[in-house]
């Protein structure tokens, strides 16, 4: 990592300072020891293994589908927080806020586009990730439990997307949620009650909007964060990604 550019030199010098060391608990990561420290000495990186198989880094081993799903979750969190600054979960103010995003807020349309796009892409990629892992046999021992965590994460992703669908409070949102929640009432014996609890009433209205808002912005993201942490950590504990002979590289 000995850099030749002056910027690189400055960066290397910065990494040698006392302040840098006090924050990151290490100097520049020039040896394998300090590179290991960079991973397990960092709260956010210690979910990852210190070493990975060279084969598992190849694009065709994973297409980085899990990583990209997680990165989409990060993008959705950031754009979601920004959108929350302009949003009231009330009828009909929610819809007016959509209009404000379009006509009043600087780059409001762009912000909403980014959030919507990333959300649709995340649903798609989480499905693709699951099918890809299945075809590679990534669910086989010792990865059984992590597969189950993944299935739950898929369901949480669907619920996140679905609860967000209602928030613009336009015709599309209202009727999509009406159609979806009508299915719940087909549940034997408890269907009507479950629907009442999820909507806060018998119809999609103000209470449903508030409930979906709280689920979408607080409850489901928290559940997702915990499950994602377990999911990553278990990849490490279960011995890394499943690698196969046809992944190429110098592996045997």
């Amino acid at each position: 990592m000995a850099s030749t550019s002056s910027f690189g030199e400055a960066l290397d010098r910065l990494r040698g300072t006392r302040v840098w060391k006090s924050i990151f608990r290490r100097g520049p990561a020039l040896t394998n020891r300090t590179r290991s420290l960079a991973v397990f000495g960092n709260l956010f990186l210690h979910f990852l293994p210190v070493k990975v198989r060279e084969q598992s880094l190849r694009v065709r081993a994973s297409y980085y589908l899990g990583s990209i799903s997680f990165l989409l979750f990060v993008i959705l969190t950031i754009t979601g927080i920004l959108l929350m600054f302009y949003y009231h979960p009330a009828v009909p103010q929610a819809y007016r806020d959509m209009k404000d995003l379009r006509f009043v807020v600087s780059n409001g349309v762009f912000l909403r586009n980014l959030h919507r796009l990333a959300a649709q892409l995340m649903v798609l990629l989480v499905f693709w990730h699951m099918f890809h892992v299945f075809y590679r046999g990534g669910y086989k021992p010792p990865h059984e439990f992590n597969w189950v965590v993944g299935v739950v994460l898929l369901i949480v992703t669907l619920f996140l997307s679905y609860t967000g669908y209602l928030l613009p409070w336009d015709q599309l949102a209202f009727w999509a949620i009406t159609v979806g929640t009508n299915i719940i009432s087909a549940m034997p014996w408890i269907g009507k009650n479950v629907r009442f609890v999820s909507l806060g009433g018998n119809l999609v209205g103000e209470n449903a909007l508030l409930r979906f808002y709280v689920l979408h912005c607080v409850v489901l993201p928290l559940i997702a964060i915990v499950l994602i942490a377990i999911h990553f950590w278990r990849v490490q504990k279960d011995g890394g990604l499943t690698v196969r002979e046809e992944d190429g590289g110098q592996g045997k």
Partner: protein
Amino acid sequence: MADKENKYEAGFSSDAKKDPVRVVFLTKKTSAKVTGEDRPQVMTYPHLLMREAIAFMVLVIALVGVALFWDAPLEQLANPLLTPNPAKAPWYFLGLQELLHYFPPLVAGIIIPTLVVVALVVIPYFNVNVQGKPLWQEHRKRRLWIVVSALLALALLLGFMRAWTVFVPTAIIGLAMLYSYFAAAGGGSRHVFLQTRPLSWWVMTWFILVAVVLTGVGTFFRGPGWSWVWPWSSHAG
């Protein structure tokens, strides 16, 4: 350090260099076999993290590029008195909505999704054929009869319910299974990929194909009253 009165006190020294302590337990059992990792490995930092950073940048650039030119849909203010025809769920539930068209709500809306989730959860605990042996490797005749009768039963049920959008992908997978049987029986080297697939592969591929067809039909080919429309024909909706 022991003092004069207590010379032979047992204990651990805090100075590992001066008084090294080695404790060995000998048991009759053999220890678990440790298999070494012989595949080449690289450090997560920087090799994996640098790739993740690049993936993040490419992703953000692509998303920004699309978000600049494509607008998120926004329709009129929600109106409980004005039902659009058809009222559609989000795209990832349109496969279920398509099923609702054929089967009663309890079956299409509750039982089938529950079974799908349960099936997905039990996959790794369903310890049959972990090695992934090809379906047609052994007991071929008996397996052929089981597959054919299962396919016929499914085809009859779907035909009876007139669930054609489920019937067609099921028929495609069924024909591919039969083709792979005869290709394997002929000892041919054609389509070895299909010949060597295990049953789990066939079931998952069938599930994915049905899900994709149902979602696609629900999204693009369904109009007023859930009737069949072509996506290019305009209709008053």
